[in-house]
């Protein structure tokens, strides 16, 4: 066996070990959250709002945070969808392969990279100017900014997979770009577009730094779009910050709830991707 072969074997071993290491860290994270979160998880946590003294270990649950997070991420995702879909369609159908769309993609990629705490700070400033206090609306605005680039680029890449011939066939039949976009392209790519939406939703529901300034926190369920609202990530953060082990256990349970939501979203989008390959004309 010569030196080259040995070198290759060593590096191949290192590569496999690295892959195992990366996957192992995923297992470790999920394992830790399940192991510490599961014992503290019970039905009351999922169905009750915090009662008096909850943060000292008394009765209650995190329903406020679960509902709040669904409202926040749901609202932001709906708002992003309305803005993202036209942008993605514009990039792919009205301005494909132009300098304009290249620059737009660059901007979106850069926006994707901006830390969520900066979106939080920016959203907070916007709210001050608009005269809104920390509220569901404020949180939705900040999260929309966060989700927008993720959703647009996801949709953009999904639509890019539609064969050019299909778009051209539609245009050749006399359809306008607009009709091609909504009647052909969107229909063809619906599962992949939905995957992009789910991805953005997952990002939104898991983000803490952007809602920290903008959504506030409350033990009650939100009754209006202008009232403050709790969120799961912040519930985890605040409960962990208390000095009481019983409450910290609840933080782990809350983290498990959030992780389960993320897992469900991930599995759903895998399933949708599977459907995509059977539905689309290639």
């Amino acid at each position: 066996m010569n030196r080259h072969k040995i070198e290759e074997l060593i590096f191949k071993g290192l590569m496999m070990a690295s892959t195992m290491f990366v996957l192992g860290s995923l297992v470790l994270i999920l394992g830790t959250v399940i192991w510490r979160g599961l014992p503290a998880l019970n039905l009351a946590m999922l169905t009750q709002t915090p009662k008096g003294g909850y943060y000292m270990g008394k009765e209650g649950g995190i329903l406020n945070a679960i509902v709040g997070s669904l409202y926040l991420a749901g609202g932001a995702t709906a708002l992003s969808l309305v803005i993202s879909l036209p942008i993605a369609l514009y990039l792919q159908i009205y301005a494909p392969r132009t300098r304009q769309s290249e620059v737009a993609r660059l901007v979106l990629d850069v926006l994707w990279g901006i830390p969520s705490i900066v979106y939080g700070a920016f959203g907070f400033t916007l709210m001050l100017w608009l005269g809104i206090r920390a509220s569901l609306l404020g949180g939705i605005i900040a999260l929309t900014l966060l989700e927008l680039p993720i959703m647009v680029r996801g949709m953009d890449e999904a639509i890019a997979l539609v064969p050019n011939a299909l778009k051209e066939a539609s245009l050749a039949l006399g359809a306008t770009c607009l009709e091609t976009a909504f009647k052909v392209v969107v229909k063809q790519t619906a599962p992949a577009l939905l995957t992009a939406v789910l991805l953005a939703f997952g990002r939104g529901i898991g983000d803490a730094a952007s809602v920290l300034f903008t959504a506030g926190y409350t033990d009650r369920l939100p009754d209006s779009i202008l009232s403050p609202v709790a969120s799961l990530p912040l519930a985890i953060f605040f409960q962990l910050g208390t000095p009481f082990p019983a409450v910290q256990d609840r933080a782990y349970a809350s983290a498990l709830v959030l992780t389960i939501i993320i897992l469900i979203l991930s599995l759903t989008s895998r399933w949708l991707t599977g459907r995509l390959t059977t539905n689309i004309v290639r």
Partner: protein
Amino acid sequence: MEKTLQLIRYQLGKGKWNIVFGLSRPTKDRLARRIMGLLTLSTGILLLVMILVLFARSWPILAIKPLEELLFSTTWQPLQGAFGFYPFIMGTLWVTMIAMIIAAPPSLLTAIYLAEYASSRTREIVKPLIDLLAGIPSVVYGIWGVLTVVPFVQDVIAPFLGHWFGFIPLFQVNNPTGYSILAGGIVLAVMVFPVIIAVSEEVIQAVPQGLREASLALGATRWQTIKHVVLRYSLPGVMAAIVLGFSRAFGETMAVLMVVGNVPQVPHSIFDAAYPLPALIANNYGEMMSIPLYDAALMGASLILLLVVLLFNLISRLILMRLVRFE
């Protein structure tokens, strides 16, 4: 006027929406093009507005304090009006650098493995799992850090390295808890794995197959081909992937905040606590309105984060775009 409104209401009432949908098809198309183009343009405007707004909000402090005092002073006493960002900037840099040192080698090796060696079945199993790693919320990373990484640093790494290498300042243990730069770095490293792996794997996949075959056909082994041809060809893209990972780590807030100790000091050892910029912003948003200049200082911190991340992202995205276009 009244009649027009009535007409509109009538048409809306009939559910015809004729004002918009009664337009001819080409007109609708032109209108849609205009609206969608404006929306696209608005993303660029958003970026500019963010920079301008953060700049304007931090102007009160930028106007009265010299930049070098803000960036290089170590005194942080908001009540006395002293705002030196130096400890926080150094905290961010330390944590980020440690994260990159831990994350880059295994990420690159994994990316090479997935792109060059793994069977398509292995890839189909591994890649979704790595995507999942990218989707885990940062607070969950933080929980994991508190439960696993911090005790590990405190009970295993610090005693070991401190005992054998404590004479090197970098490994000196002056902090009895595990809440440290190293803990933050480890958590961040795991968070940037998926970023570096996904981008560099894509870049390596984009190396023309003919180039690999040219090397293999000369009798080179697969590893020689990777080392001399594939990696050399994809080097700019791989660097871009690392820079992207760096800027992701640079702005990460909650997970780091939960494990890094948050002591405003200039760190000297990986076991020291630190106070990164994002943690500073997140921890003090509540009181910032009550102290003069405090909110301007925190907005300034956001501006620093934004500009650094913007710069790094711009560089790496431009490199990646060029690579993809050449392909």
